[in-house]
């Protein structure tokens, strides 16, 4: 990373890591308003239009600049208030639109919540506000986080900044693409089966699914309560640690929140030492079914870790082969119940039946028929079926048993290794539309990320290089025992620095330049795409 001073152009400013931005803000080399404006300008330049990234569903210009100005004023005044500013104060952030925010719409990527404004802030959003981090806006996602490509958003897909014809992963494709396209230095995601890590892998960014219960879920619109977890999205391992430290820790509003104080994750990321650590390759999570270029980059990472003094061992997790099947019973079961509340009675969309009596059942039915997309309906039907009397034991009950077996596999594996390692996703980013009509192929994309959710253990994905055959980013996944998130940052930071040394800089430096779509003459298709995204770019 080249050093910059206050006269640097905003195009250089936006490429800085959050840690570096924080340093420059603290040193008074740049103001938060300048930084925030630079990212807002970048969003205006690359996010909209026919070939825009479309990472954002809503841009929060006024509030973000107001918070930035507040931080600048505190810094300028000096004294105790300036001293007490959080390390990340003034560093902007994007928030996945599954997480509720006062003052901005929250859609969950669904028509059923179009125009809905939350009356309360999610706990993680409160913590961002306490740290005085300007919120740039809300990012796109598969509807209710159900998908691996962001194509299931009711507001149109997000594009992968590495290749605009490819998917950015999902469900958190918006957060990953925003960070990869330098539209935000940091973002929040949610990960139920890989929705932070897989988008990280295919966009060349870092994403972390923390230990279940270590970050409050209060205010994250639930898909599958026992699997969902909010986590950081960034361009560097250290940046994720910094953000994780802001959002993590006990929350009395979430009963599943762990009471333990958070470990010092930032220190772990700065420690950078794997000498003597045992790193376990999971036999079942590489090889057959994995793209050759993915496999090659994975092996290179293992080699680098070995050179740095780590001991590479192989572990077997024989029950992981049942993880995907069990996941697709537990997740839809919980989702079918969690999404029951969207019925048009109290908030959001209400659609009256076109004919016939206006009974409550019929109003609920037509609202849900019109408000939910196909993938959401598919999972609700699947989950309703799996929970039905007479099927419960065979489906939900068996899936819970598989879950226990997966936990045992992890326990056995962590008896042999401090950290486990695998490719994050079996392939690089596929083309938009390629798997849209093949749900099973889409589901297979999460085969390596799902076991961590099933067991509640933490996982981190970091860029592992570009695949030989298509030149697209490959993700490396690290997994640690529950409550040992610090190990992920420790090993991740080492691997990142070894890889960057090899590449001669961050992987994203090799991403193609995005053209300024704001200068495009609007075409008919532009108008159509803008109309499909009513809240995009507006400030409500």
């Amino acid at each position, binding site marked *: 990373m080249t050093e910059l001073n206050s006269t640097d152009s905003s195009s250089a400013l936006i490429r800085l890591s959050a840690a570096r931005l924080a340093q420059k803000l603290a040193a008074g080399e740049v103001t938060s308003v300048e930084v925030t404006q630079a990212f807002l300008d970048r969003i205006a330049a690359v996010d909209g239009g026919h070939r825009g990234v479309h990472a954002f569903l809503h841009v929060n210009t006024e509030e973000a600049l107001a918070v930035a100005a507040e931080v600048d004023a505190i810094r300028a005044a000096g004294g105790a208030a300036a001293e007490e500013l959080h390390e990340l104060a003034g560093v902007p952030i994007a928030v996945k639109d599954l997480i509720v925010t006062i003052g901005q719409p929250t859609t969950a990527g669904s028509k059923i919540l179009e125009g809905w404004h939350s009356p309360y802030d999610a706990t993680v959003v409160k913590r961002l506000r306490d740290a005085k981090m300007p919120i740039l806006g809300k990012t796109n996602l598969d509807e209710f986080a159900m998908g691996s490509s962001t194509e299931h958003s009711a507001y149109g897909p997000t594009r992968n900044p590495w290749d605009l014809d490819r998917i950015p992963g999902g469900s958190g494709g918006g957060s990953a693409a925003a960070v990869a396209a330098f539209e935000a230095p940091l973002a929040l995601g949610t990960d139920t089966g890989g929705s932070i890590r897989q988008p990280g892998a295919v966009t060349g960014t870092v994403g972390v699914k923390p230990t279940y219960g270590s970050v409050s879920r*209060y205010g994250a619109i639930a898909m599958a309560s026992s699997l969902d977890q909010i986590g950081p999205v960034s361009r560097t391992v250290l940046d994720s640690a910094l953000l994780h430290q802001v959002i993590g820790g006990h929350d009395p509003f979430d009963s599943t929140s762990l009471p333990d104080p958070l470990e010092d994750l930032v220190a772990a990321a700065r420690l950078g030492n794997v000498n003597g650590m045992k790193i376990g390759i999971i036999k079942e999570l590489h090889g057959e079914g994995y793209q050759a270029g993915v496999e090659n980059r994975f092996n290179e990472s293992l080699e680098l870790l070995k050179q740095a003094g780590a001991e590479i061992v192989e572990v077997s997790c024989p029950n992981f082969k049942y993880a995907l099947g069990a996941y697709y019973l537990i997740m839809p079961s919980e989702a079918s119940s969690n999404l029951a509340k969207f019925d048009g009675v109290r908030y959001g969309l209400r659609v009256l039946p076109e004919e016939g009596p206006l009974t409550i059942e019929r109003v609920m039915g037509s609202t849900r028929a019109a408000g939910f997309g196909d993938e959401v309906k598919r999972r609700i039907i699947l989950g309703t079926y799996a929970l039905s009397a007479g099927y419960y034991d065979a489906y939900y009950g068996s899936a819970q048993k598989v879950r226990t077996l997966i936990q045992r596999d992890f326990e056995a594996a962590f008896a042999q290794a401090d950290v486990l390692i695998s490719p994050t996703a079996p392939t690089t980013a596929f083309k938009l539309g390629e798997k849209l009509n093949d749900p099973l192929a889409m589901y297979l994309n999460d085969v390596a990320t799902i076991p961590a959710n099933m067991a509640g253990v933490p996982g981190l994905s970091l860029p592992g290089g570009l695949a030989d055959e298509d030149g697209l980013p490959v993700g490396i996944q690290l997994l640690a025992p529950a409550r040992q998130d610090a190990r992920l940052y420790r090993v991740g930071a080492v691997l990142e620095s070894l890889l960057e040394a090899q590449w001669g800089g961050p992987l994203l430096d090799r991403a193609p330049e995005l053209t300024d779509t704001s200068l495009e003459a609007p075409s008919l298709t532009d108008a159509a795409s803008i109309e499909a995204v009513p809240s995009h770019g507006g400030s409500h």
Partner: protein
Amino acid sequence: MTDATLSFEEAMEKYDPVLGFEVHVELNTKTKMFSSAPNVFGDEPNTNVNEVDLGMPGVLPVVNKTAIESSIKIGLALNCKIAETCRFARKNYFYPDTPKNFQTSQYDEPIAYDGYLDIELSDGTMFRVEIERAHMEEDAGKLTHMGGAAGRIQGADYSLVDYNRSGVPLVEIVTKPIQGAGSRAPELAKAYVAAVREIVKNLGVSDAKMERGNVRCDANVSLRPHGRERFGIRSETKNVNSLRAVEHAVRYEIQRHAAVLDSGEPVIQETRHWHEDTRSTTSGRAKSDADDYRYFPEPDLVPIVASREWVEELRATLPEPPAERRKRLQADWGYSDLEFRDVVNAGVMDEIEETIAAGATATVARKWWMGEIVGRAKNADVDPGQLGVKPETIVELNKMVEGGKINNKMAAEVLDGVLAGEGTPAEIVEKRGLAVVSDDGPLLEAIDAALAAQPDVADKIRGGKVQAIGAIVGGVMKATRGQADAGRVRELILQKLGVEG
């Protein structure tokens, strides 16, 4: 359409009733079961709610610790075992009074199970009701159906929903099938619900006001021919919300079932609605055991762990059990066994205790409640406690009588006025011009007139037949429209006739 019924006696001759009760008790915690919104009755609709009670996107439940303590106390008072760990589940169904479209309720892991309650019937017979479980759940909101017929959902133009009650903590107490009550079944039903109400009130965990729905009873009734072991098909009569209604509903269902069985038809397994006005039930929705609520463990909550130490701590805080309390009260009040049992059966023990606490003697309190109020409640077809008589009113009325300001007959009239909402006793006495005539002048005139009107009676008294004086006193009282002090009238008559009383 009214259903055919058999007489209760005939029903009993042919069939053996089996009962079962689900009693819902609303806890009086400060906040709701899973949110920090206030648990308060009677406020403006939709004011005691927050994002959790409204089922907003992203919210999560947090269990109210006081509600758990109250539930454990109820379990202990019902002689239940307390689960070391237990969980909540989700009961999934779409209904607009349930904001999440699922109810968070305990399902296969209740906090308390395997208990019993000994019930004393009116003649002193003890009957043991076995408790299957007491589990925790949240209450639903309240729907008001507008337009159409009499607040029913059928034919309503639209419905309003108030979520103030949504999330109020409930404990549901479920009995095992109650067999062997025979013709005492209706009485047992009433006594059982009264006992549960007494327990939760005594524990201080519920306001226990049935008229407010703090205690609600669903009564299951089935019949089987005498001597048969297998149960008949049951009906479940919902929301029977007074003690008298419980007794009536069970009696009615027994008579209705008997008529159905006699006709050779099978009883339909269904919920029934109780109608106080017609004292009968009507068919609700068909209910089968196959109703699919798609229960599964609530993933947003962790299991509740009730350590044995905690349970014992709570056990140590339990108040005196109702049976012992009764013994103590009877001794304190000096009532005979019969007097006390009458008081208990009339359901006015608590009211008498409150009246004594307000300053009345035990005798006076009993005289008012048993002599005046129970009868009025019976006429009004409500439980005596629901009539609206305040202990202070009784104390005030009694003071007026003892002070000679009014007599007992007037006091009863004043009580009617108080109940009719005409004001305080003093105001009513003033307004109606009620006061004992204590000036002897008008009395002497009336006595002269009465003696003149019945000279033969006057002669009898003069001749020593003092007991004949009643006719003269009656005449005086009539002339003074009851406002005279009868004792003083008697004295004056005897003086006038020169007879020793």
